[in-house]
């Protein structure tokens, strides 16, 4: 899949996924991989960036299977940003789709 598309939309997907439920690193990557193929290594830098921007916060939770895990949770700022991104995405993809339909219609003539 085109990397440029992926990069733009990854933030949106990550925020949406975490909004639904608090997750830790591995869970998050698994979930996101169901939607887009993502390099596991680059999720963490993205999470760090979102945390630094106060869109996400993290906490440690004890786990029965091993060391405590760092869970990510969306902040109110993050929810606001998510809504903005979703809106932008819908507008953007809507316009692109409409354009593609229009052009292919003319080609068929």
């Amino acid at each position, binding site marked *: 899949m085109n990397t440029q598309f992926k990069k733009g939309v990854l933030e949106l997907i990550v925020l949406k996924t975490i909004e639904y439920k608090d997750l*830790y*690193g*591995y869970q998050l*990557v698994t979930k996101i991989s169901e939607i887009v193929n993502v*390099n*596991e*290594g*680059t999720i*963490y*830098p*993205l*999470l*760090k*960036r979102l*945390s*630094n*921007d*106060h869109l*996400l*916060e*993290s906490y440690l939770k004890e786990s029965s*299977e*091993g*060391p405590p*895990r*760092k869970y*990510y949770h969306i902040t109110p700022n993050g929810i606001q940003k998510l809504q903005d991104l979703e809106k932008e995405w819908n507008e953007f993809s809507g316009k692109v789709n409409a354009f593609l339909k229009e052009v292919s219609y003319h080609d068929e003539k």
Partner: protein
Amino acid sequence: MTKSEFLEQLEQKLLLISEQERKDILIEYGTYIDDKIANGASEKEAIQGFGDLDELAKEILEAYKINTDSMDSKADKTLDRAYSKTESFLNKFGNFSVNDIFHLIFDAFVLLVLLYIGRILLIDICLNILMNVFNWIFGITYGAGIVYAFEDLMIWIFKLIYLAASILFFITVMSRRIRRIKRHDYRINVVEDLKQSFNKEAKDFLKDDDGLPPIPGTKPEKTLYHQRKAQYTDSGSLLIKIILALISFPTICCIIGFSIALIALFFVGVFEHVYSIGLILLGVGLLGGSISVQWFLIHLWPKKEEIPHA
């Protein structure tokens, strides 16, 4: 590669990140690898999933650089502020980067040195020889006094002519330099320009359109100053602190000295009834100046900002 090898190598590539953050990152990746192994992958597979190690490190570093607002130490922000203020101030003089300005100042300096040497050669030496010859020829016939007066006049006239010629010369060469710098043409240095300004073409260069083709695509990118540094290190902060401390020392001495001087003036005025307005104003001005310089230095003092932990 084993997990520990992977983490060690990754750590080596992340040295530019602060220790606390780095530890955090490595723990996260370690836990991630463990989780993956627990879910059935082999150690090798778990690590291969990350792709190329160098690319990974680069992405991590970029993630920190991207969000420069929380990562920059105050030192870098101070540098950025100072640098960009200087740049915007100098830009009012016609779109030069600070680099260009330094080039120009250097060129001006070279010119001045050459002019000064020329002055010594022409005026001090040659003129002196001339005057001595003059003396020898005419001194005997007309009487010393008139000849000396005449000579002094001649010397003054020559100096004035030389000064006027130097100024004109300076302006000519500098405008050529400025025109070149505007087109980012660094290939020709100032001495070449000097030679060329004696040519006939010099007149053409004084007009705005001098017929040279514009150098394509050389608009310099204005990145943040600290990003132009080859390495992102914390030593910038230390360097600024050292410089500020060094400059603060004489400034504080000035403040103490001028305060004492003002107090002394005050007491002299009260007890001896001798007031010197000039000296008092001078003292106040100097004291005010040193205090404001010191305040400015304190304002620039970099504080390490708390990097928010995820």
